[in-house]
């Protein structure tokens, strides 16, 4: 893998500004292919890294908000190749903004692992999160990603044992995702910020050079309390805003931009 990946650079930029990196998550094709690209482009003016989800209809680790976005995207006919073309189009004007694709393993499996990685490379995808491909099952796939200059992002959770944590950190690339609590996405933050940061610090202590982000349960209300982290991920709150805007017949793109701006201001 290249020493200075776009992902690493983004964390460095945020560090130079003495703030955590802001990572956003939206579902590709929510609520149409065109709108989803528009949302992605406009929030990337404020977000440091954009995560883009593959919509899946049996998402076992996602809560209601992201499920709603995913079902909406599937209903609108979004296919795997559309996800890649959204990324390619995005990168045409935002070539320095890292994109991380996130999804479930069945999509990769059906597409074919090698073909999938090749496609990621072509579209200039910077990283991959596969929710249901944990360590050590992900070893082979992760090293394939690495060989192709794609960051495979490992997840760590409050239930991850000490010995496992060491192995996962050793096997990780530039970024590690810490799941703040026992929850699917979109749950209410049920652990204190202090406790989350304590767990986060344990990961950092293993290897200071890894960028560790915290996600799950992060909203406008909770983001400030976790400012110490290298990065913070907001997903369900954004999906919820899209759903709300559609219901109220308001402009979802503008509303989402405003939300992301607010999130950014809280951690400046």
């Amino acid at each position: 893998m290249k020493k200075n990946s776009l992902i690493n650079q983004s964390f460095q930029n945020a560090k130079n500004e003495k703030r955590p990196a802001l990572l956003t998550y939206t579902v590709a094709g929510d609520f149409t292919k065109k709108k989803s690209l528009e949302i992605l482009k406009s929030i990337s003016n404020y977000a440091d890294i954009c995560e883009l989800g593959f919509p899946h209809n049996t998402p076992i680790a996602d809560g209601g908000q992201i499920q709603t976005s995913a079902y909406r995207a599937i209903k609108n006919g979004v296919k795997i190749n559309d996800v890649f073309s959204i990324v390619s189009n995005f990168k045409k004007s935002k070539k320095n903004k890292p994109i991380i694709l996130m999804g479930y393993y069945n999509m990769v499996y059906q597409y074919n692992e090698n073909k999938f990685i090749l496609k990621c490379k072509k579209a200039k995808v910077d990283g991959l999160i596969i929710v249901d491909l944990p360590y050590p099952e992900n070893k082979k796939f992760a090293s394939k990603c690495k060989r192709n200059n794609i960051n495979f992002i490992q997840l760590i959770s409050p239930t991850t044992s000490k010995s496992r944590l060491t192995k996962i950190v050793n096997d990780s690339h530039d970024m590690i995702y810490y799941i703040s609590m026992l929850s699917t996405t979109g749950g209410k933050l049920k652990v204190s910020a202090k406790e989350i940061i304590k767990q986060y610090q344990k990961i950092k202590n293993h290897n200071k050079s890894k960028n560790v982000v915290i996600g799950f349960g992060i909203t406008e209300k909770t983001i400030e309390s976790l400012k110490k982290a290298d990065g913070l991920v907001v997903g369900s709150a954004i999906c919820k805003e899209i759903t709300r805007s559609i219901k109220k017949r308001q402009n979802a793109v503008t509303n989402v931009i405003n939300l992301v701006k607010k999130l950014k201001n809280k951690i400046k």
Partner: protein
Amino acid sequence: MKLKKKIPLIDQHDKFGFWGGKFGGNFIPETLKKPIEDLTKEFEKLRKDQKFIKKRDFYFKNFIGSPTSFIKLENLSNYLGGAQIWAKVVSEANGGAHKIYNATVHALICKAMGKKYIIGDTGAGYAGKMLSMAAKKFGLKCKIFMGAKDIKRQKPNCDAMRKNGAEIVPVYSGSQTLVDAVSECMRYWVSNCDNTHMCVGSTVGPNIFVKICGWSTAQISRELKAQLKEKFKKVPKKLKLINCVGGGSSAYGFWSEFIDYDKKHIELIGVEAGGPKKSLLHAAPLSRNAKIGILHGAASYVCQNNEGQIHETESISAGLDYPGVSPIHCFLKDTKRARYTYATDEEALTAYQLVTKFEKLNPSLEPSHAFAETIKIAPKLSKNTILIVNSCGDAKKDRDILKERLGKN
């Protein structure tokens, strides 16, 4: 890909949990790694513990009512001509179906692990009803996840769950059937795995759940083996064991003692849900050649599109209405040890009518699928062929559907 002899099929997986190198495994979020590892250790410890085995056997006998009877369906055999048709009446088990074995074992494990809450999925409502019974018996708080469509069509079982003090959580996502119930149950476990034990209602899900369930239902074939020797003095020369397959827990339980036999001696026939005759939807991933995919933490044949989105399924039988199937049945299919076919809704209904006309037996819509295949093949077979159907569920729960489709109470 090869089956091993003298090793239970549930244990014939590699270190990553795959049968035949590709079915099963653990495709789970990181959060579930630890609870699954804990459960695996606990189960491996308990199954070697003689005190635990004694306890299990005690409850199998005194709570479930083992053994269930093994009877000849004389009238049906005479009517069809050809093979002799027998039934293992597993629906006699407490609660009315085989799901009680898995539920009881899970409740015992939950107790052993010191957890007070137990959750489970259900389609036909039997897995949920049985878990609610076991929870009540052992003093556990119980939540059952069930698709909204199934809550409507399997009302008698829902009434039973509530009566036992369980909470039914309706699931409105997707097709509002079993597949969505399992997803929602797993999501709940992700959020509450620190104090809650999860029971998966069939031989599906991450590796350990396949094993626990198969280990529990295997009681059925242990009983049958003894009963065969009692009735025939030895295992008959030409034997076919016919079972419906949803997730595959009753079929595995019915077959497990007989897998080592040659298939020319003992044929294993699994019958999936073909759905309505004219519908393109079905729930028959094995017999209608679905591709391998990942569903609910395991790789198996799955009804899905070529993008990996899970297909909606359709079947008159809520218990069989599931797009995936147990990895161990995929293994049995690929090694050609078992043969899989399907019956349509209409064929299952016709079979139900015929069986209830001739016999004092009231099989639910799930085993009626197995009877449909039996009725199809029996007339073509010789008198010394013994067909045994696992009549694994009672039709009380199907009251409303049968009334609507057949105009009968």
